[in-house]
């Protein structure tokens, strides 16, 4: 029962008038120079990784900016290594499962926290979020004992569960703020239009919160894909070993040789899905941050 607000069209016009187009300023040369320096600084380690992955044998100890005898030998060899391919599929299963469950459970929980009238809502959210502040190392050892006792040690599900405990709080936190921004009227309109509560959630709320869901999905996936400490503590064989652990356990041709080349190649390979994922969803994320996807 608010008093009449200003119609959207008028507001937009006023804003447009109040903010004249900024005059085009030519970007000064030093700006470009600093941008180039920052990009170089950020990307050089990754370039060095590529550099090493293309070298074999004695070249590995060289510091050439361009590999003297570039070869793809390292790449072919890691794909012939069954422990790597197995670990790759383990990682995929663990990460995707964590992401899927995380997004579904997280969105349900976040929706409840955003919409339901209940007491202790804020303390509950704070409690959930506080879990993310635990140092992982603090739970690694107890989990190892517990998982050994109940038979989850060295299983994929034994990894998914602890990953979820870290992924869910953040997902919930992000999604709560997304859901809160969606006007309640939209759900009520859907209810009056003949939707069940779940249909209103699925057909109106979820599509509008899609940028938030995409963001949480990517963050969860990246965290699970890259996780090392728990994967190292809670696995013992190829059955459940994920890629970061598998790479660490690569062996050289002799006891004294560090398998630098193959490790680098493997690191490059496992970076690719993440890069693809971010590129794919980039538009969604950016759109969610800027365009105001929930504007009525």
């Amino acid at each position, binding site marked *: *029962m*608010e*008093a*009449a*607000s200003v*119609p*959207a*069209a*008028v507001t937009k016009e006023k804003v447009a008038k109040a903010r004249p187009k900024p005059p085009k300023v030519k970007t000064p040369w030093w700006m470009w120079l600093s941008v180039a320096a920052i990009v170089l600084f950020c990307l050089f380690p990754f370039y060095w990784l590529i550099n090493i992955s293309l070298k074999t044998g004695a070249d590995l100890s060289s510091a050439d900016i361009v590999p003297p005898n570039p070869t793809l030998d390292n790449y072919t060899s890691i794909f012939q290594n069954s422990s790597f391919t197995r670990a790759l599929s383990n990682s995929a299963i663990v990460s995707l499962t964590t992401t899927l469950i995380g997004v579904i459970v997280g969105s349900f929980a976040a929706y409840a926290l955003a919409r339901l009238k209940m007491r202790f809502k804020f303390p509950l959210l704070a409690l959930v979020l506080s879990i993310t502040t635990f140092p992982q190392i603090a739970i690694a050892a107890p989990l190892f004992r517990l998982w050994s006792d109940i038979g989850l040690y060295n299983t994929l599900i034994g990894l998914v569960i602890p990953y979820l405990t870290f992924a869910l709080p953040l997902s919930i936190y992000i999604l709560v703020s997304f859901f809160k921004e969606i*006007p309640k*009227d*939209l759900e*009520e*309109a*859907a*209810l*009056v*239009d*003949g*939707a*069940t509560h779940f*249909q209103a959630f699925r*057909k*109106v709320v979820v*599509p*509008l919160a899609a940028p938030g869901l995409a963001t949480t999905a990517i963050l969860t996936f990246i965290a699970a894909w890259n996780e090392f400490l728990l994967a190292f503590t809670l696995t013992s064989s190829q059955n459940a070993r994920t890629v970061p652990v598998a790479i660490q356990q690569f062996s050289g041709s002799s006891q004294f040789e560090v398998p630098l080349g193959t490790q680098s190649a493997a690191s490059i390979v496992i970076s690719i899905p993440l890069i693809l994922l971010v590129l794919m969803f980039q538009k969604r994320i950016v759109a969610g941050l800027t365009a105001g*996807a*929930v*504007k*009525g």
Partner: protein
Amino acid sequence: MAEITFNDVWKRYPDGFEAVKEMNLEVRDGEFMILVGPSGCGKSTALRMIAGLEDISEGDLVIGGERVNDLEPRDRDIAMVFQNYALYPHMTVRQNMGFALKLAKVDPAEIDRKVTEASEMLELNQHLDRKPANLSGGQRQRVAMGRAIVRDPKCFLMDEPLSNLDAKLRVQMRTQVARLQRQLGTTMVYVTHDQTEAMTLGDRVAVMRAGLIQQVDTPKRLYEDPANLFVAGFIGSPSMNFVTGHLEGNAVKTPFGEVPLGDETVKRLRAAGGHKSRDVIVGVRPEHFEDAAIADPALPHRMKFKAKVDIVESMGSELYAYFSVQSEGPESEQLNELAKDAGMEDLPSAGTGQQIVARLDAASRATPDQPLEMVLDTSEIKLFDPEGGRSLTRA
């Protein structure tokens, strides 16, 4: 199509606040019923109870002969237009309008036919494939109406559908809503805080205050025969003037002079049990004053008086003359609430006395700061009980 009946309906919130109290209202089949009142009077809550978005604490709500208290919104077959339209931003106009039918699993060809039909009625044909974000305020409003129309529901519920439009568009849409309702003949319950909308649109209007229905009647009868001070002050623009007076025999002493009461008024006073020596609040509509220089002297029930005009506002077709009379402002809880709703509670009154507005003919020579002789139509004055605000002159 259906009638809607409230039987002793209450709405209590967990914190004990009673938004709607003992509501009894019957909306007839095909009727255009308006719920009007200031902010927080419970009108939107009442509407949301019909929609099923708000639980009913007590009493029965009957739509089309069926008690719907415990039915989910989707089972009530009603359509609602929200104040901010609540269009689904991720759907095109076509999808927005067809959403309800799609949920009801109506044949796609049939959905398409109905959406096209409604969009023609609302002149939305060119915009069917656009998203709500790219529409103007007026277009969004029409889409919201279209979404309700395609349903062909038992009744329409409108929650201040025009309040987000600018003044000119609002008048335009107002006539369109009225035409639409006549055309469809569907029962409609329309909530507004704007008394002009209420007066122009409704078959009948229910005036609400603090969760209680004050009066349900046709706009004309609400205006001419208000049940209490609140209705009298709320309906009409500029609103009715109130001054204190004292009833003595067949005349009432007012700041304008001693007003003799007509036989009809005395009869009504008797019927209301108010015919005795007592204080009253006198209500006079602005149009019942006239410049004595142009008033027809032959008309009966006219009383002349003089007042110094403070301000004159010319509307072209008529003049509003503001003047003060020596009177203490009548004290009444209902009038205070009206003033509060209009945002005038803290305004200092102009000088001493009570400000009165008179609507005079455009030919009047009223000038600011000059005395003017006016006539008052004594047959049209209303008397109210200062205690409780009940009208003492109801027909």
